[in-house]
């Protein structure tokens, strides 16, 4: 079986995706002297005009995928910058209206860290708890709203769990209360349909590299009707209607445009294929004793599956699965020695949080990849449990919560 398979197997698409070869071709057409290399801001010659044309075409592809006006798309260096621009941009522009922001504990750091920065600047931030299934409920949002709330920032799909928040209901509440609503949608594009024409969302962040585009490019949707204004965070040249200065990287922009064009075209077929891989994977892995799926299985995308393998520690599991590239909420993989803050927010015990693995599939995942991964997981979990004193105690019927552990 391994004869046909390239090892290690990439099961970490939620962290980044390879660039689609069609996208790579488009990028390379916009770099060299014989390509479309000009500065899109150059008004005085054909090189500039052609580059501008390519940038605008790409903008339309991005807008098409999420059903908005191309003029509502602002290029950024990625979703992190888009999140920063949205959150700080709204906070800075509208601070005379209030200094309270609502977000959640399971946001990406690209949302949490700008919020922390605003707290240092005198803003107050409420960090909502998710429910057990990893979802932020509209009720939780509603109950956190104050007179001085100016912004709600809630992610669409959680990057660790794959859970999907109800943007329609949260946005409706925000609209009724006259509060701006920002959504980090880095994980969404090409996975589920987004219709900004009907969704009550004011700002939305996108990333190219999670959707088979290049790294280093993203976009922020800034609604025109009703108009949303933001204060620029990067100044110099007034590009992107003053919202984000800096020479536009034509090659990356056309890469993102092409990636999003393909995403629109192939979303349905990609989705069906990945759903069937997910079913196969999920059914098989459910046969393993004492595993826990993290996040609401009925409210998640099928390209991400986060599982805790009880009585096995996450980092050792990743080491035992060296032929599979996955990511872990484990303590030891990061320098901070902290279990995943997302899993802890769900109320998972530390030991379950640190025995979690995130598997994420994508466009180039094959059925053989899934089969091989399942074989390796079964083997590794068996071996590590044979080695685990906790598994032995579990089999002996000992309740681990009653043991007087010697913490160190």
């Amino acid at each position, binding site marked *: 079986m391994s004869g046909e398979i390239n090892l290690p197997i990439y099961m970490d698409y939620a962290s980044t995706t390879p660039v689609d070869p069609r996208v790579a071709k488009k990028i390379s057409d916009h770099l060299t002297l014989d390509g479309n290399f000009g500065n899109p801001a150059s008004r005085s010659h054909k090189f500039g005009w052609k580059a501008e044309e390519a940038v605008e075409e790409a903008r339309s592809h991005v807008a098409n995928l999420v059903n908005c006006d191309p003029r509502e798309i602002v290029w950024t260096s990625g979703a992190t910058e888009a999140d920063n621009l949205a959150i700080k941009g709204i906070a800075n522009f509208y601070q005379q209206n209030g200094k309270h922001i609502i977000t959640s504990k399971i946001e990406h750091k690209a949302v949490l860290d700008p919020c922390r920065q605003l707290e240092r600047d005198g803003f107050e931030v409420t960090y909502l708890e998710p429910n057990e299934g990893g979802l932020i409920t509209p009720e939780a949002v509603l109950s956190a709203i104050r007179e001085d709330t100016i912004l709600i920032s809630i992610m669409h799909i959680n990057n660790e769990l794959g859970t999907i928040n109800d943007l329609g209901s949260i946005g409706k509440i925000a609209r009724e209360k006259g509060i701006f609503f920002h959504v980090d949608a880095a994980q969404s594009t090409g996975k589920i349909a987004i219709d900004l024409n009907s969704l009550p969302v004011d700002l939305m962040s996108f990333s190219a590299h999670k959707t088979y585009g290049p790294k280093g490019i993203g976009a922020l949707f800034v609604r025109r009707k009703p108009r949303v204004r933001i204060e620029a965070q990067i100044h110099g040249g007034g590009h992107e209607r003053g919202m984000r200065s800096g020479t536009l990287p034509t090659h990356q922009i056309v890469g993102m445009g092409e990636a999003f064009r393909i995403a629109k075209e192939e979303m349905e077929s990609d989705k069906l294929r990945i759903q069937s891989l997910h079913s196969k994977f999920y059914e098989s892995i459910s046969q393993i004793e004492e595993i826990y799926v993290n996040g609401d299985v009925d409210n998640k995308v099928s390209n991400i599956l986060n599982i805790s393998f009880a009585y*096995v*520690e996450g980092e050792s599991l990743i080491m035992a699965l060296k032929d599979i590239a996955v990511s872990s909420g484990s303590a*030891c993989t990061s320098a901070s020695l902290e279990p995943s803050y997302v899993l802890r927010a769900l109320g998972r*015990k*530390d030991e379950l949080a640190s025995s979690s693995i995130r598997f994420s599939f994508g466009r180039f995942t094959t059925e053989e990849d899934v089969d091989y991964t399942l074989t390796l997981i079964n083997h590794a979990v068996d071996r590590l449990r044979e080695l685990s*004193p906790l598994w032995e105690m579990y089999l002996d019927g000992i309740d681990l919560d009653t043991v007087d552990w*010697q913490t160190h």
Partner: protein
Amino acid sequence: MAYSKKVVDKFENTINEPAKYNVGRFDPKEMNVGTGMVGAPACGDVMKLQIKCESKGNTHVIKDVKFKTYGCGSAIASSSELVDMLIGKTLEEAKEIKNIDIVEALELPPIKIHCSVLAEDSIKQAIEDYEQKQ
């Protein structure tokens, strides 16, 4: 992960050939068995070490060792390394084993020193348990 080849090899050998690498258990009630269990699930590692001794007068020699470890790769490698150091030693000699011996043998990165400390604690506790039974 900044692990040395030694940690990786030790880890892989241990999980691939558990019997050869002394993974297992003795009956803790046996009089010639000493058991030590240290760490906590919430901290990410638990080591259980058991020694089986033979006594000649006042000298007790470690004849066999079994262990089980829940923890990161270096925790598993550290306990497996410790097992190698113990077999054939007298209890007096085993008491002399320090965590730094394991650090050096496996070239543990600084962030993983606590794994070796845990291993040292596990043998101390196993010896204590054994001596109480005598």
